[in-house]
């Protein structure tokens, strides 16, 4: 059928500035029409045409996979919206401040009808420069939202000193160095930087380099949620790698929030690219390795209580 409708998931802890950002997206003159799914008890004052209240009803899929949770209300709402195709170009899903982004994201991979009609574009997390560090200490949800993000809006930078800002940025980077980070005051971020990211599109996974502006970021105490990057400077054996990654995500799925990889398979001219959310992996052979491109294999995990040594050993055992 026609082109899939992009969906942006907007998360952020209470008071970080989600509603302000949402209103900016809706009112700015970008020529796009949005359908917006807001949580029912969210802050008032969102203007727009197609605003739908959601209940954030999460259920476990009946497939034996404990972390395979999806948003039932979202499936129903998207089904209803699809009858009104042509009325909007994109969908934004706002979650409550305490929400775990995983069930929202998983809905797009687990439900067939949703996956046929829409595509998850990116998870955008709004954070508060002044209070984020406190929240990282006392609110696991805030940490999850940072870990899960493809794009992070570091908001309210005008309320902190340059030093505090560097500090909070480093705290974010200790958890998720891969998300694109945009600093903002009153959520004044370029809308183009938030939309059409294709963060879950295998064809658009070009590299998995950290998004650092400057090198030499100061060292942080070990966070329970953090990212681990693994590299094999060569090829891997798919016969070893596929069972390993499947087992790993089956067993450690609840702790692995996001994963991504670009791999060089033995005797395979194309790059194998995958991305995952908890236990759900989506992988495919992508384009050919280019001349002059180093055939190496890289993985990134962002998760909670991950054992780096164990992961490294497991991955290295997959080398061809």
């Amino acid at each position, binding site marked *: *059928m026609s082109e899939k409708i992009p969906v942006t998931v907007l998360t952020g802890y209470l008071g970080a500035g989600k509603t302000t950002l949402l209103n900016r997206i809706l009112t700015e003159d970008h020529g796009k029409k949005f359908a917006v799914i807001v949580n029912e008890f969210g802050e008032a004052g969102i203007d727009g045409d197609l605003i739908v*209240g959601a209940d954030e009803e999460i*259920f476990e899929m009946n497939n034996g996979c404990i972390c395979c949770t999806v948003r039932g209300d979202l499936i*129903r709402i998207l089904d*209803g919206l699809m*009858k*009104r195709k042509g009325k909007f170009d994109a969908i934004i899903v706002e979650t409550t401040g305490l929400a775990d982004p995983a069930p929202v994201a998983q809905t797009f991979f687990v439900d067939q009808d949703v996956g046929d009609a829409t595509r998850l574009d990116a998870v955008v997390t709004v954070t508060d420069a002044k209070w984020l560090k406190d929240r990282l200490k006392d609110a696991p949800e805030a940490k999850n939202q940072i870990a899960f993000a493809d794009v992070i809006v570091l908001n309210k930078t005008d309320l902190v000193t340059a030093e505090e800002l560097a500090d909070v940025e480093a705290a974010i980077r200790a958890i998720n160095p891969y998300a694109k980070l945009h600093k903002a005051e009153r959520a004044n971020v370029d809308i183009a930087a938030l939309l059409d990211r294709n963060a879950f599109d295998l064809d658009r996974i070009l590299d998995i380099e950290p998004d650092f502006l400057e090198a030499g970021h100061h060292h942080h105490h070990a966070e329970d949620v953090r990212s681990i990057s693994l590299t094999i400077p060569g090829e891997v054996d798919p016969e070893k790698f596929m069972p390993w990654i499947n087992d790993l995500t089956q067993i450690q799925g609840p702790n692995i929030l996001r994963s991504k990889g670009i791999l060089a398979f033995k005797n395979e001219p194309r790059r194998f690219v995958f991305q995952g959310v908890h236990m759900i992996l989506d992988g495919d052979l992508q384009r050919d390795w280019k001349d002059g491109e180093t055939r190496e294999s890289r993985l990134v995990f962002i998760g909670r209580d991950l054992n780096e040594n164990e992961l490294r050993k497991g991955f290295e055992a997959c080398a061809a």
Partner: protein
Amino acid sequence: MTTMTPPVSLREHVTPIAAETHVVAAHWLKQGLVLALADGRVLRWRDGAVVDSVEAHAGGILCAIGDGERLITGGDDGRVVTTGFEGEPVEIAKDPKRRWIDAITLSPSGNLAWNTGKTVQTRDEKGRVRTLDAASTPQGLVFAPKGYRLAIAQMNGVSLWYPNTEAKPEFLDWKGSHLDVAWSPDGRFVVSSMQENALHGWKLGDKPGHMRMTGYPAKPRSLSWSHDGLWLASSGADGAIVWPFQGDGPQGKAPRECGVRHARVTRVAFHPGALVLAIGYDDGCILMVRLTDGSELLVRPALRDSGISAFAWDKAGKRLAFGAEDGAAGVLALPS
């Protein structure tokens, strides 16, 4: 079962209707046909021509049901509206929070039920409203064929609720998310469609039992009982899957597969008086299949982006109305 020769065509007996937007439901009133449209309009059609269309909802129509006199629609404007063949639509209920009306159903005696958020409301023929706050979001609704009892598809099962009593609803449990629900005409079976591409059935009464009907490649969102109540047709596969409900039901029996094509069935509707099934596909095709011998008649050839979204037989079984997701619609008048 497919026949090798192309099916005989009924195409020349179809009168097209330009509804212009996604047809959510089709329904025959005594005076003519009404179509509930995704842009909030109800289109009225009689004797081969569109009479008019009226705005029933400010937003879109999400669900619709009706009897001979009226079409009742639920919309994304949080309203329940009744529309006759003449005159303006009349609002009969409104959600104060303007939440979507997700499902609506009507009993033969005129009891109405709808849901919004986690609330189910019923309105009996005398206009008395009852409210049930469900533990998990109610989805599909259907009344028992006799009596004032409502089946509510929910998370992990189906509730059976007597709105006129204070008793807690009986809960038929089965793990998973239940979407649509159907009650057999003899009242003995309740069947739900599930998130996991399956149907689940419960045999009620003295010897209750479960029935698992699995193997669908997609969610079976359209269900239709045969006029004799012995068969349940369903969508969600490359042919209509028709389960036998004679005796103890379909458990351990194989379903019939009718009109198998390289497309997905989106709507099914049994003829009101014969074992003939109308089957609509996501590629726009419509076939009519006789259950007794599997013979097929072509009603509408495949048409790009025109997947079938609505069916309605008239009471006498002489006309079949259909609607599609691109706003195409039509009426087949069976040659006598």
